[in-house]
Structures are given as structure tokens and as C-alpha cells.
């Protein structure tokens, strides 16, 4: 079976927006951090936090345990702050936003302008280092939901930011967490007050545009007692020959009976066929279920980035709290992915579910790495993990490294994993029913990922299916 290479390039978001940008000089120093902080009118405590993180970062060396080859990154050769040029530092409404920028988001299919806002999703759009606009703000304010960029939150709700920032992912957590804590520029902030079910799905769209810049966004979501929110995240970047760094931190906090659903469709530029260029996606994502009966659910579809290296995790502190992780990671060409999750059970009767599907094609590497830790206090904890890999082509690799630590005998922990390929029989069966071999592969892959896709909101699910199809179009042989 051989499918012709139909499309030479299938990354439709690879365009560059010609817009003047304002950048700080390249490199990282205390001065740059002070400049970023000053630019954003930050209070003293936040600058202190950044500087502390920076000092800690200087003491760290780049980790080596990961299962991907990362070329040495010159941290002094990156722009740490880049923003589209306007008269103002922040946009107070969309009329002030440049038309090029709006067109960019239009092209990406992100509804920022009035007529498209009817779609019923509130969006915060982040372009390089700044948030461009947040829609549906008024509707959300009516029910008390705060949804804005983190810079705005620092200004308007400093008490909330101060209370929660860095409490889930401290700056000392890891190398890139320290870097992000020192230089983070923008990202989204969400606060759902007590008892509120957020009436709209919230969404952030990240776009890297500027050359040789790094994106260091910071997202903080707090769900107060009895609240609920569904949050979606999407990302793209232009096609360039150089690698670009994206090192974000996402922190989630749920209090008693609250629930956060966090979904990501990650489609950063992954480099060309020879593995040139692409984004390094090194993200620390973690949620803390602090309250009783609280829930956090991570769903991710990782289809882009030259290197994906992230472990969205749940720390289950509250009694009966639940964490879940659903992931599809697709790699092709020379992409590398080392992704998975950590479930730390601390509270009684905590439950967690892990479903991970890895698909590797061509010369790519796909690693699932997961930790399930049952602390002595987690009586009656329950975990179920399933991680399946699918290999397409004989030069790719699929590795599975789960780690299971159980320190309480009442816990029940189950783990299973399989690896397989698409069999010729399956393809033949579908072909005999009139499908082309390409469509057949796509059907089988989508079936393989079904368990994850069904946890995504409908629009996202459709998008994810299309994305996987598109990615596989010329990589199935």
C-alpha cells in the first residue's frame, strides 16, 4: 500500500503577519525583567517574584532525563518581549486594534469582531507577548466571571492574582517554570465565583508571529466553590526555518465541588519534512483539586511543535476529588513528543483516569511518560490508566514509560498499554467497502482516538478530527 504524496505542505497557518513590532533587545538579564515589569505597570511584589525566579533560574542547568534530542538553546539569543506596535500599551477595546491583527485572527478562524461573536465562545487572543482582545467580557461580568488577560488581572484584581499565582507551579518547580516565572508576558486569567456555572465556554488563542522571539504565557484559572468552567486553548505559529521557544505555565485551582475542564488543540508549526524549524513547546501545566469533590480534566490534542515536552498534571488534595487526562499526541516527519501526565493522590477516595493515545509516523519519536503516585494519606484512591500507541511506518519510535508508586494498600491502581500498527487487513476491509486507502487510515486513526475526542467540546472535536486527517495526509505510506 502506497499513498502518493498529494500535498507538499499542509500547515495552513504558516503565514506571517507583516506588522511592525516593538521588541526589547535580545537576551535575558535583570534589566530585561525590570523592563517587562515596568512596561506592564506591575506592582512591586510581582517584580520581586520575577527577580527571585530569575535568580533561581540562574542556578539551574538544563535537564537531561527527557527522551528527546534538544539542540542547545541559546537563551541570550531570544527576544523575551515582542508586541505589535500601537500607541497604547494595552487595548481597551477592539476598535483600537490594528486591522492587520484582526485580519490575522480572522484568517485563523478566531471570532474577535462583532458579527462573529455570536458563536457563543468568549475568546482571549494573545499575539506574541500581549493579549489583543477579549470578547464577551460584558456578558461574563454580569454573572461575576472574570475573564481577562493576566496583565489586566494584575492591575484590576491584584488580591486574587497574588493569592494564587505560583501556588500550583512554584518558580522552583523546574527549569522552564523558573524561566517563565521570570519573564512571563501575557496569558489569560479566569475567576469563576462561588456557585456560578460559566454561561459561555472560555477560550484563549495563542499566536507566535515575531521572529526569534519566545512566547512565555501564563494562565491562571480559579474555580471557586461549586463553580464550573469549560476552557479551550488553541495555538499556531508561522512557518520559519529557525526554532522558536514556547515555555508557558498553566495553573488551575478548584475549590469545594468546583470543576474545570481544560482542552487544548495544539498546532504550533512543527518544522518541515527535513525537520527544519518548528516550535519547542515546553509547558508546565498543573491543576490542584483543593476542595472536596472537586474535579479537573485535561484534554489535549498535540499535533504540532517540533518538540512537545509537557505533562499536564493533577494534584488531588481534597477528599473525593477527581482528575483526568485525555491525550492524543500525533507526530510525523522528525517531530518529537515526550508527553504524559502526573496524578498525585493525597486526599481520601481520590480518583484519576488517564487515557493516552500516541500516533507516530515517518521518522518521529513519541513518548508517553506518566506518574501515578498514591501517598500514604490517600486511602481508597483509585487510578485507571490506559496508554496506547500506534506506529505508522518502520522508522518511527513509540516508547512508554509509566511509573506507578503506591504507598497505601487500600489503593487500586490499574495500568494497561498496547502498541500496534494499522493492519493491512483493516485497510483492505475498508477499501473493499469503497474507501480510499487514505480515508481508511484516517477512519482507523480517528477510531483509535475516539475515547479522547469524545471528551472535547463539539466544535473542538470536529477540528481535532480534521487536524489529524490533515496531518496524516501525506505521511501514510
Amino acid at each position, binding site marked *: 500500500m502506497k499513498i502518493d504524496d498529494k500535498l507538499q505542505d499542509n500547515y495552513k497557518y504558516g503565514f506571517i503577519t507583516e506588522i511592525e513590532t516593538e521588541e526589547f533587545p535580545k537576551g535575558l538579564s535583570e534589566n530585561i525583567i525590570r523592563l517587562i515589569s515596568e512596561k506592564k505597570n506591575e506592582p512591586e511584589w510581582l517584580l520581586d517574584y520575577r527577580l527571585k525566579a530569575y535568580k533561581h533560574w540562574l542556578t539551574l542547568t538544563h535537564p537531561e532525563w527527557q527522551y528527546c534530542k534538544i539542540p542547545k538553546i541559546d537563551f541570550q539569543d531570544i527576544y523575551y518581549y515582542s508586541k505589535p506596535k500601537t500607541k497604547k500599551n494595552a487595548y481597551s477595546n477592539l476598535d483600537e486594534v490594528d486591522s492587520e491583527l484582526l485580519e490575522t485572527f480572522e484568517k485563523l478562524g478566531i471570532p474577535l469582531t462583532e458579527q462573529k461573536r455570536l458563536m457563543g465562545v468568549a475568546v482571549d487572543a494573545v499575539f506574541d507577548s500581549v493579549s489583543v482582545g477579549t470578547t464577551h467580557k460584558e456578558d461574563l461580568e454580569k454573572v461575576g466571571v472574570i475573564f481577562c488577560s493576566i496583565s489586566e488581572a494584575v492591575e484590576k484584581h491584584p488580591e486574587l492574582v497574588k493569592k494564587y499565582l505560583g501556588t500550583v507551579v512554584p518558580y522552583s518547580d523546574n527549569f522552564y517554570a523558573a524561566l517563565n516565572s521570570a519573564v512571563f508576558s501575557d496569558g489569560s486569567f479566569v475567576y469563576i465565583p462561588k456557585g456560578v456555572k460559566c454561561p459561555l465556554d472560555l477560550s484563549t488563542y495563542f499566536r507566535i508571529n515575531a521572529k526569534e522571539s519566545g512566547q512565555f504565557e501564563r494562565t491562571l484559572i480559579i474555580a471557586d466553590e461549586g463553580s464550573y468552567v469549560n476552557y479551550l486553548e488553541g495555538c499556531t505559529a508561522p512557518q520559519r526555518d529557525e526554532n522558536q521557544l514556547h515555555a508557558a505555565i498553566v495553573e488551575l485551582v478548584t475549590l469545594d465541588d468546583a470543576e474545570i475542564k481544560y482542552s487544548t488543540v495544539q498546532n504550533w508549526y512543527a518544522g518541515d519534512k527535513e525537520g527544519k524549524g518548528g516550535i519547542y513547546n515546553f509547558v508546565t501545566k498543573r491543576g490542584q483539586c483543593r476542595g472536596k469533590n472537586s474535579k479537573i480534566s485535561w484534554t489535549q490534542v498535540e499535533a504540532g511543535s517540533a518538540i512537545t515536552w509537557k505533562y499536564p498534571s493533577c494534584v488531588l488534595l481534597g477528599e473525593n476529588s477527581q482528575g483526568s487526562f485525555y491525550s492524543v499526541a500525533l507526530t510525523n516527519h522528525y517531530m518529537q513528543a515526550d508527553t504524559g501526565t502526573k496524578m498525585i493522590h493525597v486526599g481520601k477516595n481520590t480518583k484519576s483516569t488517564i487515557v493516552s493515545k500516541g500516533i507516530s509516523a515517518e521518522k518521529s519519536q513519541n513518548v508517553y511518560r506518566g506518574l501515578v503516585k498514591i501517598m500514604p494519606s490517600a486511602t481508597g484512591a483509585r487510578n485507571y490508566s490506559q496508554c496506547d500507541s500506534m506506529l505508522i511506518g518502520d522508522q518511527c519510535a513509540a516508547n*512508554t514509560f509509566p511509573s506507578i*508508586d*503506591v504507598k*497505601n494498600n487500600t489503593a*487500586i*491502581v490499574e495500568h494497561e*498499554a498496547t*502498541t500496534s500498527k494499522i493492519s493491512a487487513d483493516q485497510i483492505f476491509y475498508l477499501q473493499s467497502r469503497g474507501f480510499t486507502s487514505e480515508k481508511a487510515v484516517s477512519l482507523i486513526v480517528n477510531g483509535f482516538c475516539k475515547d479522547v475526542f469524545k471528551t472535547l467540546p463539539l466544535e473542538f472535536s470536529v477540528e481535532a478530527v480534521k487536524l489529524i486527517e490533515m496531518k496524516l495526509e501525506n505521511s501514510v505510506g
Partner: protein
Amino acid sequence: MNIEILSAIAEKKLEHINGSLLDFRKNHLDQFKLNGFQEISKDSYKFTNIESFFKELSYAPENFDSEVPDFKSTIPTITFLDGEFFGSENLQPEISIKMVKSHFNEVKDLFTTTNALSRLHHAFLQDGTIIEVARNSSVLRPLRILHILTKSTVSAPTNIIIVNSNTKVSIIEETRVLGATSHAHIAETYIKAHQGSKIEHISVLVENEKGINHSTITAQVKQDASFRSVIVSASGMMNRKNLSINLNAPGAHGESHALFLTNGSEHCDINTEINHRCEDTTSEQMAKGILDGESKGIFTGKIHIFPRSQRVASSQINKNLLLSKRAQVHSQPQLEIFADDVKCSHGSTTGQLSDDEVFYFETRGIPMERARNLLALGFGLEVVQKIENQESRKHIQDIVKNKLNEKFSIGDIK
């Protein structure tokens, strides 16, 4: 015992050695003195800090006072006492046995690994057996290599097992510790399975709570040959097993089954690696742990499928039973797959005895303690059932039953 004491003991033991064995031991001793425990993979020994366990060992070279109890069984046996040849009985004609000491030059090329523990083994290298099983023979009765340890010292036996084409054999390597000696037993076993042979290798350990036991088993499996390893270990203070099965030619089949029983503050670390180096190879693994007291168990099972090793099937299952609140288990299955036409699966579960199952027994008039016994025994014996040779199986089954009886808080097993 720290590096100095270990080196001093090794030095002393060199006195009556000469020839190439002396050079070999000296060389590795020098390397060990130089690097100590540095030469060890931090990843692979993540949960087992070898050096600190060695520090806990006290050195007291006392002889075991009472007589060596009778471990006689009807099984053909070669006995080693504290690492030195002691005697043999009922041996069978198909099996030829040579001593490592007197045939060292023939086998010295096997010792290629260079980590701290193998350095230590080589520096202490004592006697052992080179067992060769003749071509086209089926040896019905198992062969037992029995190591009895009575002294608080370091012993380092070596076993080399060569099984020629079209031969079937079952070999038991049994290590027994007498009294409360605090010792280090560092063993290495090399197995060669020639074309079409079938080997069953059973490694069984009955330790006290003071000893260190480190053993490495390496198997090379040729075309259409099959190798089955069964590890049964009633642990010591620290017990580490490294098993590596290399499936080198089409049709090779490897199996690795392990059962460990730990209690008190014991520590057991089982590390297995199955390397599918060639296409059309298959493997199967089952590892089970029964943990009581404050003991700690670690299972790391790697399945490595090399590039171009197509049409490979491999499965692995790991199950752990925690009998007490403070026992801990770490399970790390690892799949590394570099070929696409493979079927690979692994599973892992950890839990306690099910109340429902115990209750079912009680409704049938069987008291709780007994019910727990039976359930734990049933859990453990699944591994023992994998042994094909009936005589071997019976022998191991008795050891497991006795061990569960005397060591565990689950009561009496009749």
C-alpha cells in the same frame, strides 16, 4: 561495609589465587577501588541506593556454629558452601559440569559488563559451574545448583549454562541463607540457548533480613530456541535482580516470570529487560509482588524492540498485592519500540485482597485468616505455575508455601 572494607576483604581473598584469574580479579578490584559505586546507572538504580545498603552491612567473619542442615532433596544437586564447591549427587550423564576456577580462560571473555556491581563480582570471583547440556537430549529431571551461605562475608559465584541444539532442560539456582548472617551475595549467571533448545531457569532465593543479594542473569537466545526465567525471591535487606534476555535470531522466544515476597523493612528490586534484536521473536512476562510490613518492592520491566525487528509479539503483566498499610510498591513498565509491525502490551495493577473475595470464603465456613492465606497463595502461585518441569514446580511451590507461612501476617497455610 564501605569501599575500603570491601576492598580489603577482596585483597585478602586474593592470597591463594594465581595465573590469569589473579590478574583479572586484581584489575577489577583496582577499578572498584578507583570508582567505588560511581559506575552505576542512576536511572536503573533510582529506587535502590546500593552504596547505602552496603554501608549497613556489618563485617564479622564468623563461622556458622551449628551443622549445615539437610537441604537434600531427590533432585540432582551441586552444592556450594559460601561460594566454594561442596559436593554433588545424582547427576545425570547428559550434563557435563566443569568448574569455573579451573577453566577460567575458556570463559573469561563473557565478563564484559563494567558497572560497579560487576566489578565487585569480578574482584571476588569465586568458583562456579560451567554446565553444558549435550545435543539432542531431553533431560527430564531438573538440575539444582544450591548455594548455602553461612558466613558474614562477600560471596561471588558464577554460573555458565550452555545448552546445545535441540535440548530441553530445567535448572534451579537456589540460594539459601543460614542463621542471621549479614552478608553480600553477588552472583552472575550467563546462559546460552543454542538453536532449537528449550531452557527453563529458576532462580530462587531464601534470605534473612540482613543480607544483600545482587544477581545478574544474562541470556542469549538463538534461532527457534526458547528461554524461560522464573525468579522467586523471599527477600533480604536488599535484593536486586537484573535479568536480560536477548532474542538474537528469528523464532527465539523469551519468558520472564517473577514473584517476590517481602516483609519487615526488606527491599526487593526486580529489573528485567527483554531485547528483541531480530524479527519474528516473541516474549511473555509476568511479575508479581506480595508485600507486607514496611517493605518496598520495585518492578522495572523494559521491552526493547530494535529497528527492523518486525513481526514481534510481546506482552507483560505486573500485579502487586499490598498486605499492610506501610508497604510500598513502584512499578515501571517500559516499552521502547522502533519497528512498526509489532504487537506489544503491558499492564500493571496494585491493590489489596478483595473484601468480597474474603467474605465469599467466610460464607463457605472458611475463617478469615485462612481465606486471606489462600487468596495470597493463589495470587503468588500463578507465577510458580509457569514452571513447566513438574519436579521443579513442586520444589518451588513448597518453598513459596513455607515462606508465606513463616513470614507473613496472613496466618497459616496448610
